[in-house]
């Protein structure tokens, strides 16, 4: 049975790549070229865009006292997108189109940026109240993270 795009897990080859990248980054604080090549091979242009988002520290992990978390990624257009922390969902149009409709991408650049910023350890952290987290998860149209 072909491995269909999963909403919850990454293919083994991607898991391994991310794991190798994490190890290399711990030694060198940098992603080795060979890993960058692999990343581009697997993810195409999303890889470069995701790396750019990571460089600009665009990924924020938001948590509340309950322990529940959500990610927000500041896109290149200046818009902020919300991504779930436990499975693959992003509020951006590319996720709806390329991942869901056309099924030709595994992740959008924001979800990939989240994985990469975990590897690089460059995630911003932000605390909000439980109620604020509810609103963020609900992804109402007008969404902005209050800069503290």
């Amino acid at each position: 049975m072909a491995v269909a795009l999963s909403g919850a897990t990454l293919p083994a080859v991607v898991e391994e790549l991310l794991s190798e990248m994490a190890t290399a980054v711990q030694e060198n604080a940098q992603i080795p070229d060979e890993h960058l090549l692999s990343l581009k091979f697997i993810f195409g242009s999303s890889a470069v865009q995701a790396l750019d988002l990571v460089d600009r520290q665009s990924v924020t992990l938001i948590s509340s006292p309950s322990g529940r978390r959500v990610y927000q990624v500041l896109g290149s257009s200046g818009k902020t997108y919300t991504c779930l922390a436990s499975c693959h969902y992003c509020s951006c149009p590319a996720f709806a189109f390329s991942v869901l409709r056309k099924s030709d991408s595994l992740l959008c650049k924001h979800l990939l940026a989240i994985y990469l910023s975990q590897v690089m350890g460059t995630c911003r952290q932000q605390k909000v109240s439980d109620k604020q987290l509810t609103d963020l998860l609900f992804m109402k149209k007008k969404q902005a993270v209050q800069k503290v």
Partner: protein
Amino acid sequence: MLRMAEALRRVLNLGSSAESESEYTAEAGSPLLLLGGPGSGKTALLFAAALEAAGEGRGPVLFLTRRPLQSLPRGRGAALDPLRLQKIRFQYPPSTHELLQLLCSAHEARGPAPSLLLLDGLEEYLVEDLGPQEAAYLAALLLDTAAHFSHRIGAGQGCGLIVALQIQEEGDSGEALQLSLVQRYFPAQCWLHVDASGPGRRCLRACLDPGGQGPRAEWWLAFRPDGEMTVTPWPAQAGKPSSDKGSSSEGQP
């Protein structure tokens, strides 16, 4: 790591005698999608899983459905144990909006985290003109809510997730797309087929595909007129009348 629908699996496995600890490992788990046409026993099976989980001595069970159950399915066993029933919390979000609110705010609730999250009738929430993004969002939020409960439970098996989805034979392409999107979020799936029915008696076949976490397995479920459910593993079903569309799955690894 979300738990394989342990309760459902145990319900199905317990029907047989001499069942050694099954081939599935209990640690790693997946959310489970229960699929079947109308009257294929999804609600009854969901409720049986609820009773099973409620008897485990862990957290409560959260059972979400649009409309209250007309009658409580009997599940397995002679009588409904009131102590177990008490641990099943029913909530009835009337619309997709309310369901999303409930899931998004699940972390605000105090008290012990549920050990099992059940949703019956996902199709009733998907039908409200939901595009692919909204359908995926709903499925993903269900996973996220169960993941949060697992996090609150801490070490151990975490919170299981079983969602029942009614499918139509003659669904349109929009429904097919919604279904395939929902399936992406549920690695483990269990299909229910009506095999035979008579007055007051239903016979069903359940085919479980654990999505890479074990071999496929099938069971034969029978509901008696008094509501009691009996479960038998499919291969062991010797003297069964062969209405056999299922034999194609024999010989699966």
